[in-house]
């Protein structure tokens, strides 16, 4: 199978994720979009590793997964806390930190 297809898929997933981050208001959805972008990047890494015939890209993909797991823990904790205090998961509403 042609590795280029994987790269194209990765680009498509990344774009969907980026658009999701920009246009969605629900913090959970935004969070999921971020995960989508990370995994699009992972897919690209693995595809390139396959194309180049070494394991560097695969190693980085594992790193990204570990970091993403940690990030999920912190991020979800923040979202839950915000939801508890403001009764809302919209990311437009917490806007106290401004000029």
């Amino acid at each position, binding site marked *: 199978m042609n590795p280029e297809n994987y790269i194209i898929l990765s680009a498509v997933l990344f774009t969907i994720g980026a658009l999701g*981050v*920009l246009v969605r208001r629900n913090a959970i959805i935004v969070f999921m979009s971020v995960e989508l972008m990370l995994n699009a990047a992972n897919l690209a890494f693995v595809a390139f590793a396959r194309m180049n015939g070494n394991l560097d890209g695969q190693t980085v993909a594992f790193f990204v997964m570990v970091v993403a797991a940690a990030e999920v823990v912190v991020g979800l904790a923040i979202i839950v806390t915000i939801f508890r205090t403001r009764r809302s998961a919209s*990311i437009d509403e*917490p*806007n106290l*930190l*401004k*000029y």
Partner: protein
Amino acid sequence: MPAEGVFSLIWLLIAMPLAGATVLLVGGRRTNAWGPYLGILTVSASAVLGWIMLVAMMGNSPEERTFDQTLFSWVSVGDFQADMAFQLDQLSMVFVLLITTVGGLIHIYSLGYMSHDRDRRKFFGFLNLFVGAMLILVLANNYLLLYVGWEGVGLASYLLIGFWQYKPSAAAAAKKAFVINRVGDVGLSLAIMLMFITFGSIGFQDVFGAAGEASDGTLNAIGLLLLLAAAGKSAQFPLQAWLLDAMEGPTPVSALIHAATMVTAGVYLIARSNAIFNLAEIAALTVVIVGVVTMFMGAIIGSAKDDIKKSLAGSTMSQIGYMVTAVGLGPVGYVFGIFHLLTHGVFKAGLFLGAGSVMHGMNDNVNMRRYGAIRTVMFITFITFAAGWLSIMGIPPFSGFWSKDEIIHAAFEQNTLTGILLIIGAGITGFYMTRMFIMTFLGKARWEDDVHPHESPKVMTIPLIILAIGSVFLGMALLFWGNIETWLEPVVGYESKEAPISTGVAIALGLLAVGIGVLIAYLQYQRKPIPVEAPHGSWLTRAAREELYGNQVNNALVVTPTLVAAKAATAVDAKGIDGLVNGSAAFVGALSGRLRRYQTGFARSYALSMVGGAVLVVLALILVGAS
């Protein structure tokens, strides 16, 4: 030779007055009761020790009269060596005696003069400090230690001129003296640096021994810088303006510091550096010119002032002009410059203390137009002042006659014009001193209504009597019994040249000039009544009352340009530099004020700008990669 026997106590000469000053100034009010007596005791003890040293020194042969004492190494940096070391030779010896003896008498006099002053303990502390610093100045064996004494006497002078600092005029006079002296001090410090560069040492013996090896230009530069220092300390033209204002200080201070000792330090400096001035012809000629100019300026100012102390201050300037001229003449004059310094130190101290005694009886009024007929109430002051008067005019056989005549004769040996000018100066001296004497002691009383003059207490008159005896006999004693030429010759050198006129003619001319001066003064002030208000006077009188516009010249040449420059610098600082700094801060502040509007708190717009930025970076990379 190393100091042994009584000479191992050279340090004690200096240590006693300094210890006195320390106790009195640190001890504070606790020492009020006995402080003045301690001050007198320390200086008197130094005087006694000095006289013992003189006797011991006279027992040695002339080659063995220089004693060195090194206390400790003071500054030692690389090649630069300066020791806390003293050198007592014939020149230092006569200065030590002048300082401690006249100083001691003035201390005793001050006991009476300052008896009503609340701060007299402090006054004696400052006087002790002065005596100690002056002794350091004359006993140092290197220029750096001399500089310490030089600054020390400047400090003491400042403190004592401003002793009544609650009077704004006294505070201003003290500052003026300090600032003008600073100009001279710069000259001395530059001279010391130049000596170190040239000779690699600042010790007297090293410098004088190597003076012949230096180039003419360097020697003249050192000589002119030393002259600048001397002009500052000795109130010589063009740094003369401070001395007349310095009369704001108490009269004993004027007598000790601004007549007898400190103001003659410049003469000492030049005489001490004779090895340099002998080789530096331009510098020596400049010394003579400065001396003659100051001699005339002082005499003219002294002729017009109605303030008895300022008139005496003009006279001091003029007499120091004589000494400076003498030491500028070279080996024919050094010894006579010092000779005149000694006799002048005694008779001028007597005159100042006499003036102080008169002021004491006249409610501290200094205006001679309000004096007159004081001989009737203050007989001892009258007689002692008369001795000083005759001495300063150079009437034989009084002290001033011998020293002044020798200077005039030495001037003729070197340069006829200088001799003629000095004789004219002697005539003006006769005029202003007779004027002062008549206005104060003779004629009719012109006292203010509530004045009841009385003779001063014994504690003041006894020093006056001793100084008057000195005014009469010191000249003869030094010349005939002390052989001042042979005494000083090993230190400063002495040679006699053929003069165009004989000694007798010089004396006759000098006395003729003085006689004319006295006659004019007699006709003008004794035969005519003296108005209580000063008359308008000729242009010369008015100029002399204004101190020959010295202050105006200083203001125009130095003070005003400095003030203008300072104001300009302030303006540049406030508008230019502060403007730049404050302006850039304001610019950044305004820019930040605009930029912070983009911090909206709207998380998705931040995300958009991040994505936009990332896209831009990627586009740039693609463009760069493509080309």
